[in-house]
C-alpha cells in the first residue's frame, strides 16, 4: 500500500497579511479556506475531509461548525498536532484517507496572529518539572543545535549566514515579504547575538497570517482547471532525548522522514529541482539538508555557502518566496508555507525572477516543536504531472 499518486493538491492559498490586528484567528482560517476552495474551483459544500492543528481555535469541531462545512458530507477529520510541520503531516494523512476512500476533497487550514494576539500555551509533557524552569525557547533550543554542529563539524556562522542571504535574494521579489532587503553575510554576522551562536538574522520573522490546501483524488483534480500537482512520497518521524541516552543534537527526525518519502517516491535527492525547507532558523535549514541527503552529514556548511541555495545561481533553489527568514512564518509554524511555494513552483506560478525552469519535482520538508529538545518532522515529495 502506498499513497504514491493517490492524491493531488488542487487548491492553494496563502494569506497576504503579515499583520492582522483587525481580524480574528478563526476569521483568518475562514479566509484561507475560502481562498483555497476558490483556487481549486470547488464549493465549500464539496469538502468531505477537514484537517487542522493546534492553531485552530477550539480544534476540529468548533472549526468545522464555524467554517460552515457541509456536515452531511464531511466524513473524515484529523487534528494531528505536531507544531510547525503539522500541515505536511496532514497532507500525507489526507492522501492516506483519500487512498482508503475515506474522503475525496480534503481541506487543510493554518492561521493565527502571534504578532497581534495571544498565542495558546504549549501543553506540558511528562518532562515539565525537569525542564520547564530552564527556559528553553525556540532561539536557544536551536542555538544549542548550532553550537554542537559547529563543534562536531566545524560549521561556521558565515556558512549559516549564506542561508539568510539566499532567502533575502528571493524575498526581494515577493511583494508580501516582511523583509525585502537583500542582505550580505556581513549583515548577518553584524546583527545582534540573540542566543549563541545565532544572530538576529539567523532567526525567522514573527508574522500573522495563514494558508490552506485542497487535496483531492486524481479524478477530481483532472476535472478541475489547475496544473496537476501530485503527492508521490511522504514521511513523518519524531525525535527526542529519549531518557538522555546517546544524545545527538546534530541531526533531526528528518533523517528518518526523508528516506521514507524518497523511497515511496522512487527518486533521490539529486532528482529534486526545488526545495522548500523549513527555516525557523538558518541552522534548521542546514541540518535538514544534511538529514534529507542533499549532502553528507557535516557538509551542510559547505553545501549552503556561496549562493548554492539561490534560484538561478545555485544547484538547489530553496524557499523562493523568501521563506520564514524573510517572508512570513504564520503562527510560528512554517510547514504550510513550505507546501504552498513548492506547489507554486510546480505550477509555474512562482515569481518569474525565482521560478525554477522545468520544475517537475519538488520537496516540502518541515519540523515542529524544538529541534534541540523534542520535535517532529515531515517530508512531502511532489511531482508536476
Amino acid at each position, binding site marked *: 500500500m502506498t499513497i504514491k499518486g493517490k492524491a493531488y493538491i488542487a487548491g492553494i492559498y496563502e494569506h497576504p497579511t503579515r499583520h492582522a490586528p483587525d481580524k480574528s484567528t478563526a476569521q483568518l482560517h475562514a479566509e484561507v479556506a475560502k481562498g483555497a476552495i476558490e483556487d481549486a474551483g470547488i464549493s465549500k459544500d464539496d469538502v468531505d475531509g477537514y484537517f487542522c492543528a493546534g492553531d485552530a481555535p477550539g480544534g476540529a469541531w468548533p472549526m468545522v461548525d464555524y467554517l460552515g462545512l457541509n456536515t452531511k458530507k464531511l466524513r473524515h477529520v484529523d487534528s494531528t498536532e505536531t507544531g510547525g510541520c503539522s500541515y505536511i503531516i496532514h497532507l500525507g494523512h489526507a492522501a492516506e484517507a483519500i487512498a482508503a476512500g475515506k474522503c475525496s476533497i480534503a481541506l487543510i487550514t493554518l492561521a493565527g496572529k502571534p504578532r497581534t494576539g495571544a498565542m495558546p500555551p504549549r501543553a506540558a509533557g511528562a518532562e515539565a518539572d525537569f525542564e520547564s524552569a530552564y527556559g528553553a525557547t525556540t532561539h536557544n533550543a536551536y542555538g*544549542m543545535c548550532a553550537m554542537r554542529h559547529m563543534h562536531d563539524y566545524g560549521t561556521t556562522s558565515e556558512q549559516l549566514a549564506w542561508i539568510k542571504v539566499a532567502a533575502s535574494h528571493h524575498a526581494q521579489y515577493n511583494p508580501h515579504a516582511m523583509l525585502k532587503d537583500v542582505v550580505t553575510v556581513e549583515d548577518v554576522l553584524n546583527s545582534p547575538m540573540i542566543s549563541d551562536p545565532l544572530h538576529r538574522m539567523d532567526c525567522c520573522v514573527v508574522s500573522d497570517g495563514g494558508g490552506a490546501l485542497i487535496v483531492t483524488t486524481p479524478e477530481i483534480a483532472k476535472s478541475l482547471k489547475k496544473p496537476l500537482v501530485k503527492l508521490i512520497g511522504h514521511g513523518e518521524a519524531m525525535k527526542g532525548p529519549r*531518557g538522555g*541516552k546517546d544524545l545527538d543534537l546534530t541531526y533531526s527526525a528528518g533523517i528518518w522522514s526523508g528516506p521514507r518519502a524518497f523511497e515511496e517516491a522512487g527518486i533521490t535527492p539529486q532528482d529534486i529541482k526545488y526545495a522548500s525547507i523549513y527555516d525557523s532558523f538558518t541552522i534548521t535549514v542546514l541540518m535538514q539538508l544534511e538529514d534529507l541527503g542533499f549532502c553528507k552529514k557535516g557538509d551542510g556548511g559547505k553545501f549552503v555557502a556561496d549562493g548554492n541555495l539561490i534560484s538561478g545561481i545555485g544547484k538547489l533553489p530553496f524557499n523562493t518566496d523568501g521563506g520564514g527568514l524573510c517572508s512570513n512564518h504564520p503562527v510560528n509554524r512554517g510547514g504550510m508555507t513550505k507546501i504552498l511555494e513548492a506547489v507554486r513552483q510546480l505550477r509555474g506560478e512562482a515569481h518569474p525572477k525565482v521560478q525554477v525552469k522545468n520544475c517537475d519535482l519538488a520537496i516540502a520538508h518541515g519540523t515542529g516543536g524544538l529541534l534541540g529538545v523534542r520535535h517532529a518532522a515531515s517530508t512531502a515529495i511532489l511531482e508536476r504531472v
Partner: protein
Amino acid sequence: MSEAKKYPAPVTNPETAAFWDAASRGKFMIKRCTACGEAHYFPRAICPFCYSDKTVWEESSGEGTIYTWSLMRKAPTGPYAIGYVTLKEGPSLQTNFVDCDLTTLKIGQKVKVVFKPTDGAPLPFFTPV
C-alpha cells in the same frame, strides 16, 4: 545574574516524588533499570529502553560534562545559559549553567550539580568545576 531569578516550584507526581524528596536533602537522583542495566533521566517508572518496570533510584555523582549550551542574551529576568550535561553515569539532561561567567562556557567543560531553592523542592542546576 541568575541568582536573583525566581524559579517555579516543581508540581511533582507519584512517579517522581522520590526525586524531589531526595533533592530536598541535597541528593541528585537518576533511575536505573535492573533488567537492562541502562540509566535514564528524567525518571520514569517504566524503563524507556526495555520497558521493564524494574527501575530503581540511584544517587548520581552529580558530575558531568557540557554537551552543548546557548546563552540567551536578553530575557525579562536577565541573560541565562541553557544546555545539556552528560552525566558520568551516562544520561544527558537539560539544565541551566549558573554561578559562573556565562560567556566562558565550553563544550566538554566539567560541571557539577548545584541546587537552587524554589517555593517547593529545590531544582538542579550545573556549574563549572
